[in-house]
């Protein structure tokens, strides 16, 4: 599948865009952390990384939707700000987003003419000749009079690329363009990209699929948790065989690096053979939806004091698994047994009372109410329960005291208890959630990406907490996309792909490679 044409690599080409130490933060998350990147003409530059690696933010900054907090952007060697999408277009940067941005009710021609100054008459005739010339050289046909919604997704994408070219873009960003395409559509897109770079264009191709990166790229930059963890130059690219290339990339994505946060290995804990089973999951199924692969016959168990990890590339059903266990989504079948008691018919609150706790990965989206004070967010799942409520009326001073106690105990850095939780940093929000979930009676704690987007100090603090919980004899289910984290903390690691558990690995010497290969589906 790899396109081995003569790549016109001329090292003398000056980069169109250079990113230097670009950092972008969002409330609670560092989306890009000191990223350096060079986009050169006549090159397909692949940005490879999992969901949440910071690809979209990077695109946002290149296309003028977002501004970096730190670092600088050089265009043709000069420091410039890309202030808006319009400005990006003027600088020759065209973007084709994941979801097509054509107006479905307008014809192709009308879509291509959008965005011209409003006082000018649409120049339909000159458009026709321009498009014909372009189509001929790119070897693809497009019907200008077709209504956009009648086109296939691949054709729509071609129209968008065409639109970028008609506006004299020197650089085209393709954001997850293959995610909606059929296999043959992907092939065509690959061939098209090749022809575009032959014309001297720069292509930035964003994907989380390794094979595509290897097949279509000239240069690959790998992003991981907001940082750029590696780059494969065109020279290296050509020197390597495809399989070696894949291995090298897997290493970058999942391998250990010197600047990864170090964490204390579990201090020689062994789980006693006769340790009681805290959680037993048996044959859990969930129908697939448009956005998730569902769950297929998931079975595992967690014993007292055990840390079971769930590895896998994001979006393979991990979140659904956590939500089914917590009771947040309905429609699942199968058995969930907590401490010998079936809980699958219990409500979210009932399961919490039984000792099952779920720390969501979406701290601000569902884990907390951002506008509510910290003190209330500690109690979000205990509203109305005595002793802090008396016959349904809140005891304000007791609630404040309760908050003060937890703030001190969990070292939450907040001005005070009635500060809205949304104003805190991600690490401190996570501590608030942690304090809430570890309250009285926890038996099994599900962590979903607990350190995602946190800084080093908080990451280490949270990981220590997770180890402490297991040491207390509770069961822990740790869902993470950070392999390092799983290898550092867990006793056993299950790997999820496409909503199935594809393997269970005992943490040990070869665990890293084994899991890495299971994750990208190299072993089945």
């Amino acid at each position, binding site marked *: 599948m790899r396109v081995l044409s003569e790549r016109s690599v001329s090292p003398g080409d000056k980069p169109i865009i250079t990113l230097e130490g670009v950092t972008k933060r969002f409330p609670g998350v560092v989306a890009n952390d000191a990223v350096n990147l060079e986009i050169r003409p006549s090159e397909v530059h692949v940005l490879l990384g999992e969901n949440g690696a910071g690809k979209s933010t990077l695109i946002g900054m290149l296309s003028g939707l977002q501004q970096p907090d730190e670092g600088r952007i050089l265009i043709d060697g000069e420091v410039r700000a890309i202030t808006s999408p319009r400005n990006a277009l003027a600088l020759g940067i065209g973007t084709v987003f994941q979801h097509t941005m054509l107006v479905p009710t307008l014809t192709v021609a009308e879509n291509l003419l959008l965005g011209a100054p409003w006082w000018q008459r649409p120049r339909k005739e000159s458009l026709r000749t321009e498009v014909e010339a372009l189509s001929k050289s790119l070897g693809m046909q497009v019907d200008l009079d077709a209504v956009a919604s009648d086109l296939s997704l691949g054709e729509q994408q071609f129209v968008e690329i065409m639109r970028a070219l008609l506006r004299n873009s020197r650089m085209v960003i393709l954001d997850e363009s293959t995610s909606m395409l059929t296999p043959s559509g992907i092939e065509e897109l690959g061939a098209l990209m090749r022809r575009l770079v032959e014309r001297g264009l720069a292509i930035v191709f964003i994907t989380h699929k390794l094979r595509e990166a290897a097949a279509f790229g000239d240069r690959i930059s790998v992003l991981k948790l907001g940082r750029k963890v590696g780059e494969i130059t065109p020279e290296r690219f050509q020197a390597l065989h495809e399989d070696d290339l894949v291995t090298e990339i897997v290493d970058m994505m999942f391998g250990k690096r010197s600047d990864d946060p170090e964490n204390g290995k579990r201090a020689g804990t062994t789980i006693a053979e006769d340790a009681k089973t805290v959680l037993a999951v048996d044959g859990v199924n969930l129908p697939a939806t448009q956005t998730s692969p569902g769950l297929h016959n998931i079975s595992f168990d967690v014993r007292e004091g055990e840390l079971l990890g769930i590895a896998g590339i994001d979006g393979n059903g991990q979140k659904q698994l956590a939500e089914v266990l*917590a*009771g*947040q989504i309905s429609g699942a079948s199968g058995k969930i047994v907590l401490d010998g008691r079936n809980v699958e018919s219990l*409500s*979210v*609150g009932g399961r*919490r009372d039984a000792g099952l706790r*779920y720390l*969501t990965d*979406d701290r601000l*989206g*569902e*884990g*907390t*109410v*951002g*506008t*509510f004070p910290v003190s*209330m967010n500690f109690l*979000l*799942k205990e*509203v*109305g329960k005595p002793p802090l*409520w008396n016959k*349904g*009326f*809140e005891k304000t001073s007791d609630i404040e005291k309760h908050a003060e106690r937890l703030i001190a105990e969990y070292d939450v850095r907040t*001005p*005070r208890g009635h500060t809205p939780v949304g104003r805190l940093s991600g690490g401190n929000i996570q501590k608030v959630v942690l304090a809430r979930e570890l309250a009285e009676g926890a038996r099994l704690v599900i962590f979903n990406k607990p350190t995602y987007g946190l800084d080093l100090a908080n990451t280490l603090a949270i990981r220590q907490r997770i180890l402490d919980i297991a040491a207390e004899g509770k069961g822990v289910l740790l869902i993470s996309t950070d392999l390092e984290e799983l290898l550092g903390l867990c006793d056993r690691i299950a790997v999820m792909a496409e909503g199935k558990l594809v393997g269970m690995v005992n943490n040990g010497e070869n665990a890293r490679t084994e899991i890495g290969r299971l994750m990208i589906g190299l072993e089945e």
Partner: protein
Amino acid sequence: MSAHTATTNAATDIDASHAKQARKAFLKRIAMTLGPILIALVIAGLLLLAFGINPLTYYSYVIDRGLFSPSGVQQTLTRMAPLLFIAAGLIVAFRAGIWNLGADGQFLLGAVTAAAAAPYLADFLPVWLAVVLAFLLATLIAVAWSLVPALLRAYQGINEIITTLMMTFLGTSFANVMVKLVFLDPSTTVPQTRTLPVTDRLPRLFDTTITSGLVFALVAIIAVHLMMTRTAFGLKLRIVGANPRAAVHSGLGVPLLTVAVFAISAGLCGMGGAIDILGVQGNVRANWNPAYALMVVPMVFLARFNGFASIAFVLLLSVMQIGGESAARRLGVPNVFTLLLVSIVLIVLAIAEYIDHRHNNSVKA
């Protein structure tokens, strides 16, 4: 010991600086509310000038008639009763993130139910019991009317803004039809319901013409305010309003709470209709639709869903309405000018919010 005192001092300093910040925020809020109102008064004044009316004359006349003349202030306070009930109903819904814009329909159905039931029940029951039963029945009918949008919203996720608005059109027409066809008073030629005699209506306060409904209304809105801010139930509703996904995650029964919110909100609006009939109007004439709710919505927004602030804004609205009605007769300024004034206040407020938001963002950046 001295170290201890030092830390206490530091703590009080922090407290003091927080108190200062809180005060600053409070003053800013007042300025952000009153500023737009003053600007709107100026703009509306310019409009009056364009019509050849001295705005100062108009404004002073409105305030004089609405607030400072004995009969005016009594009318103003009487008018507040139904408005406050509607405000209470809207606060519950809006704080829970549910945009019940069907209050007018719920109000009118409550009114018609009360007007039809009270005289009928009074025929064979003690008057006080008839009035109480009519009030409860009116509440019940209004609650029932809200069930359709409530169930659609709770179980199908259908936008309640559209459904409640549609239901309000249906509700007002339905109320009308009932007056004209079913509850028609045979003894009059005008299509209207039977009239509750003045002596049977809710008592007036002391020696004034102010209805005792005002007391019930004040109790209702304060109770609602305390419910929303102090109780576990109110907190649950606010969680649903502020972040529905967090509500699901926390194990709250969101659909059931949603239905409850609709029921309470519509019930309070229906009570507003009942209180207006049982206390003041005595009957409902066909085609009567004061459309109070659409006037109260902006007031509740200006008050940021705070019950006490809502009382102040409802008073303001009431003064503008009563004074405006007099001014219409006396100065020839049409009645709708009050509405115009309210809408100008809202537009100015929105612009002020926008500028404030932009300013905050630029400070942060």
